[in-house]
Every structure is written in C-alpha cells, then in structure tokens.
C-alpha cells in the first residue's frame, strides 16, 4: 500500500542526507520474536552511508577554518567516501583528489570522474592500507592539501552518534542488536556508542569482510592497520565474513526481500543471521538492525550478481569488494 508520508521537501540535495528508511525483512527473519530490519543507506544522495560522513567531515573542516574556497581535499578511499566527497566538493567549490586502490570496481572510477575528482591509484597489494600510506605521504609533501582522513576523523563517528543512532532508536525502540560493516569503524563506533547509552544490554556487532590473499599481501605483520577511531570496548562481537558468504547473502537479499544492495550488505546479513540463530537458540527476543551501506549498482561490473556463486567468487577474488 502506498501511503502519504511526512515532510519530504528539502532546500537542496545536501539537506536530504540521512533520514533513511528502516524496512523489515519478513522472509529472512527466523520468527516473530527474532526479527531482522534493514536500514537502507543507499537512499542517500550519492547512494551510500558515506554521504553522512563526507558532509560531516567537510562541515567540521569549514567550521575549523581548514577549508577555504578553491582548496584541495585529499582522501584515501576505495570508493563510497570519495564519491560522496566529490559531489559535495563540487557544490562547495573544492577540488578533490582520491587515493584509491587500483583493484576497485570500474563504476567507482567513473562516478568520481563524473563529479570532477582526480584519482591517484595505489597498488592493489595491501588494499586500503596502501591507499592510506600513499595519502599520508602525499599530504606530507603537499601541506596546503587538506587530508580529512576518515579513519581518524572524529566527525565520522560523531555523525553516526548524532543521526544514525537516534534514527534507529526512533524507528525501532525495542532494538536489541545493531550490525554494521567494519571499515573505518565510524558507523559502529558512533551508532554503537549512542545505542549503548540509550538501550541497556544492546549488542553492537561488527561484520568484517575477509578478502582474498592479495589484499593481505604486505610484507610483515607490523604493516597492519587499525583505524584511530576504533575502540573495541564499543563492540560486543566481531565476525569475519568470507566473500563466498557475503555474495550468497547479497543474492539472498535480492531473491527473498527484493533488496538490491552492495556486497558488504551480504556480509552484514551473514553476521545478522548468525546472531539471530544464536538468540533464537537461547530463547531470547531479538530485534536486529542491519546497516545496508550501499546499493548493488556499483558492483555490477564485478560480476557479483551474474552467473553462479562460484563464478562470482572467482571474479571478485583479489578485489576490495566491500
């Protein structure tokens, strides 16, 4: 049934960031006492949760006087943050340079270029760790460039504390679990902190993509990377999800719920279903909110949604798929 909603008029596209819908997953939920919900962040202006983060980081940098008209922003990103920053930079009159691993999907490059961003590619081996390293080096060499640095920018976590968390609580007052992907950790830290302050006993669950060996291909353990924003006391559990499981679940979202989401959503669903089964086994009521970071469009060229699962898995081996 189509219903008339509340106020949906905005002064500009940037004023429409956030306020995303939370939809039930009646077919994937194990039962009436164990329910799954999806917060659809692809409904943001450039199609991902990162619009919240990019806008918050730029607003904060403007307020601090770090950004002036014509300034150049530099950011390590494997896609979504870059696309969000590119759109906002265009509207606000900034230049954007993204440092992106070369093993990301073709759509990301096209979207970034469409909004006018420049791209510097970092080597595939080492994944985002390498992009961070290259961006830091460039920032040191070009002191007039503004590195927003989502992995350590407090505005990243804060915007989720101020918006994503309150939105979830308003729509799902009985929330027992929050599950989101782990990358910069901003979504989990900000939303997690808000929910922990307002919902006694709430579980904050991280779903972490487990990539192919190429992505872990640095030379020694000391080259590993933990985002500055990360505080493991906010989480209650953390799952590692293989590409095969993430792909299977992303397709399941399409087939059983009609939701066409990115591969990381499959990762989050996989962890959410594990949590749901555990709660049901213990006879506990569960209202589990899954954060769906983006839609599936940017992943079509990866082959994630075509052919058999084995074929799709082979195609995204070596890719940064989430």
């Amino acid at each position, binding site marked *: 049934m189509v219903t008339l909603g509340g106020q949906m008029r905005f002064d500009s596209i940037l004023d429409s960031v956030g306020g995303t819908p939370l939809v039930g997953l009646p077919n994937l939920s194990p039962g009436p006492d164990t329910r799954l919900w999806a917060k659809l962040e692809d409904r943001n202006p450039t199609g991902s949760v990162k619009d919240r983060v990019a806008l918050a980081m730029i607003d904060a940098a403007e307020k601090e006087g770090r950004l002036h008209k014509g300034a150049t922003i530099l950011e390590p990103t494997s896609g979504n943050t870059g696309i969000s920053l590119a759109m906002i930079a265009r509207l606000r009159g900034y230049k954007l340079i993204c440092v992106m691993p070369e093993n990301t999907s073709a759509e990301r490059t096209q979207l970034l270029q469409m909004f006018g961003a420049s791209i510097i590619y970092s080597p595939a081996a080492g994944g985002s760790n390498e992009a961070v390293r290259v961006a830091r080096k460039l920032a040191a060499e070009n002191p007039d460039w503004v590195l927003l640095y989502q992995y350590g920018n407090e505005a990243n976590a804060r915007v989720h504390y101020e918006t994503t968390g309150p939105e979830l609580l308003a729509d799902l007052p009985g929330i027992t679990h929050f599950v989101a992907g782990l990358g910069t950790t901003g979504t989990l830290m900000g939303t997690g902190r808000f929910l922990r302050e307002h919902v006694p006993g709430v579980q904050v669950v991280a779903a972490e993509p487990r990539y192919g060996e190429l992505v872990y291909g640095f030379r020694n353990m*000391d080259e590993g990377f933990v985002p500055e924003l990360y505080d493991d006391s906010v989480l209650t559990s953390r*799952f590692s999800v293989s590409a095969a499981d993430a792909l299977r679940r992303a397709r399941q979202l399409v087939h059983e719920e009609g939701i066409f989401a990115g591969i990381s959503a499959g990762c989050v669903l996989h962890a959410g279903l594990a949590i749901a089964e555990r709660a049901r086994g213990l006879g506990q009521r569960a209202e589990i909110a899954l954060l769906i970071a983006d839609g599936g469009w940017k992943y079509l060229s990866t082959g994630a949604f075509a052919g058999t699962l084995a074929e799709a898995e082979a195609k995204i081996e070596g890719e940064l798929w989430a």
Partner: protein
Amino acid sequence: MAIEVRIPTILRTYTGGAKSVQASGDTIAGLIADLDSRHVGLQERLVDGSGLRRFVNVYLNDEDVRFLGGLDAPVKDGDTVTVLPAVAGGAR
C-alpha cells in the same frame, strides 16, 4: 589434533608454506603454544606480553577471539581458527 588453523601468507614461512595446519589445545593460548612446538617462532609473531599483538586478528569459527575471552577463549575439536593481519577495510 583436530583444530584447523589457517595461516596468512606472510606467516607461512613458519609453516613450510602450508595454508593451514592442525593443532590442539583447550584455549587459544594452548593452541598457539602447541603450534609453536612444531612451527618455532610463530607464537612470538602472534602474541606479546599483553596478549595478541595489535595488528594480529584471530578468529574462532569466524568470530574475533578478542570478544570471546581473548587468549583464554576455549577451543574444541572441529573448530576452525583463522589468523589474519589487520587491514583498513574496504569501500570506505
């Protein structure tokens, strides 16, 4: 001897190139000690005085052991343990 331990590329010099090895123990700490008895030096790469090294993640059946009791997390036959270096993540 029935717990499978998956070893990341950069630590396979300790396992003669093997992607996964078998080990036994009642806890993650016991498992790592058992591993080290046959793959000398591995323990030092995974653990320091305060627990797991900062850039080392260990998963028990796909769940991060830091949330299951850390080195004291119990393990049993049939479990799978995966060792991975910490990475910056993906589409962020």
